[in-house]
């Protein structure tokens, strides 16, 4: 292939890159402008001065609380999901019992179902046990719905662990609990960190459960919170832009530092469909 051919290929790739990234850059630019500049100037121009006060304004205006809710709900759900998924994956892949294949099958079916088909009964279940408008309904829902994907990422790693580790531990008189928590779990740190990142992205970005189960402003997470918030600032583009940038920043930072983990998690989560 000649030089012109390569130039053409790079051009294609660059156009796609611009298409994928430019809307986000444009968002960042208008988050630093005021309305007058946005409405009269070119949308592609750099801000004449960087109005960071847009960020201060929305943070103090209520985004801070949503941000904190997102952090603790995401965090606790991640811990629960990864722990329970690791335990289940451990006994499914390493211990001998007749129903292990069937149980694994149940978890894998969980990968395929459309969540919207379950949301009405979930709502009425939570209503009956007084968990509507309670953030714990969100935590356990996130945990349940992320278990299948988390287990799928863990499975491959667990299958490849050598039998000798367990043999040695048991011959030394180690209990299964000790073996799991002290030996196996620490060995799975690389794949666990992948699942943590994937769970973080899913939980942080989740919308429909919070939108359905939470009505009080004080429990809302960022995704639903900014939805209301933007209602208030409907015409203030700078404030809307700042709100959106704040809401996506933690995930973008995680991607910046752990991009290989993200890539690994996303690709292994799709291998089997």
């Amino acid at each position: 292939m000649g030089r012109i051919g390569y130039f053409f290929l790079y051009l294609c790739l660059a156009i796609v890159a611009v298409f994928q990234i430019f809307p986000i850059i444009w968002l960042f630019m208008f988050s630093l402008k005021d309305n007058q500049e946005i409405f009269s100037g070119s949308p592609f121009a750099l801000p004449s001065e960087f109005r960071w006060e847009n960020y201060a304004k929305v943070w103090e205006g209520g985004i801070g609380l949503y941000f904190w809710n997102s952090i603790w709900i995401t965090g606790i759900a991640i811990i629960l999901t990864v722990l329970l998924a690791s335990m289940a994956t451990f006994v499914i892949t390493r211990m001998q019992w007749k129903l292990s294949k069937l149980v694994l099958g149940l978890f894998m079916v969980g990968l395929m179902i459309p969540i919207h088909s379950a949301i009405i009964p979930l709502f009425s279940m939570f209503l009956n046990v007084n968990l509507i408008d309670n953030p714990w309904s969100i935590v356990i829902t996130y945990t349940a719905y992320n278990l299948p994907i988390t287990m799928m990422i863990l499975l491959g790693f667990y299958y490849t662990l050598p039998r000798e580790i367990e043999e040695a531990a048991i011959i030394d008189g180690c209990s299964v609990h000790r073996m799991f928590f002290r030996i196996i779990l620490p060995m799975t740190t690389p794949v666990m960190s992948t699942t943590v990142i994937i769970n973080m992205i899913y939980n942080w970005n989740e919308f429909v459960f919070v939108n359905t189960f939470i009505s009080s402003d004080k429990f809302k997470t960022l995704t639903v919170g900014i939805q209301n918030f933007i209602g208030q600032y409907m015409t203030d583009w700078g404030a809307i832009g700042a709100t959106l940038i704040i809401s996506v920043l933690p995930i973008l930072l995680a991607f910046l530092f752990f991009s290989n983990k993200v890539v690994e998690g996303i690709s292994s989560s799709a291998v089997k469909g």
Partner: protein
Amino acid sequence: MGLNVMNKVMSNKWIIALYVLPALLLIGVLIFIPLILTGYYGLMEWDGIGAMEYIGLENYINAIQDAKFWDSALHSFLLALFSTLSLIVYLAISLILASKIKGADLLRKIYLIPMLLSSVAIAQLWIKVFNPTNGMLNSFLVAIGFENPPAWLAEPSVVLYAIFIPILWQYAGFYILIYYAALKNIPESLVEAAKIDGATPLQIALKIKMPLIMGVIKVTVVLAVVGSLKYFDLIYVMTGGGPNGASEVMASYMYKLAFSSNDFGYGSAIGFLLLIITLIVTVIVRKATATKEEIQY
């Protein structure tokens, strides 16, 4: 003796139950029971709070005669069609990326960025992109000479296609990532052998690389179709299914029936149909893309 002890310890029923039951209980109570209940609630006249009244298959019969439901189903299937067709573009990009391009690793990460954003953020961003007077798109169109670009999200005839764009934008990087990883797994020796035989890059891509990653392509077709049929978030936030139902999809129609009109019985029936349609289409797509012999490396 060691092996005996090992087998005994590793098949201890109490430990197995202790480790697997919490997870199993969670998916049972929060995923499987609700799915079954959806079908059951579909047989009821119910406002979500008061008493349920059994009405047999009335909701399901109504759904089959409900033009709004079929419109929303048509929109969902159109999204599935566009998502599947867009896979061809992603495959082409991945083939370029995987052909010894410098910076391929960085590029595929850049492509992935939209997928990391929440649907709400994407929706709000694209509401601004599509803004009729100050949005990025119309400013660009006016700058290159279009006189009256459409008000994308307010125009019933274009709104559906307009919202497909951010959905494709969101997932492009995901599919490129999957294809790229599969292409990188192809043994270099196969490509080299074809080159020695005088195959052109295009022939190598179509005759050697494509067949070798067919398994992955099939998986992505299933993902694209099923993902489209149950798609909800972005559409709900951007247009709420409007204007006048022009961008309604199955999941948004179901959600509205239950949580805006308090028609939980009818909403459940639609939710159950959504589940059934998704399952049937999954089976059909799997069957349609199945081949008798899997390709060996």
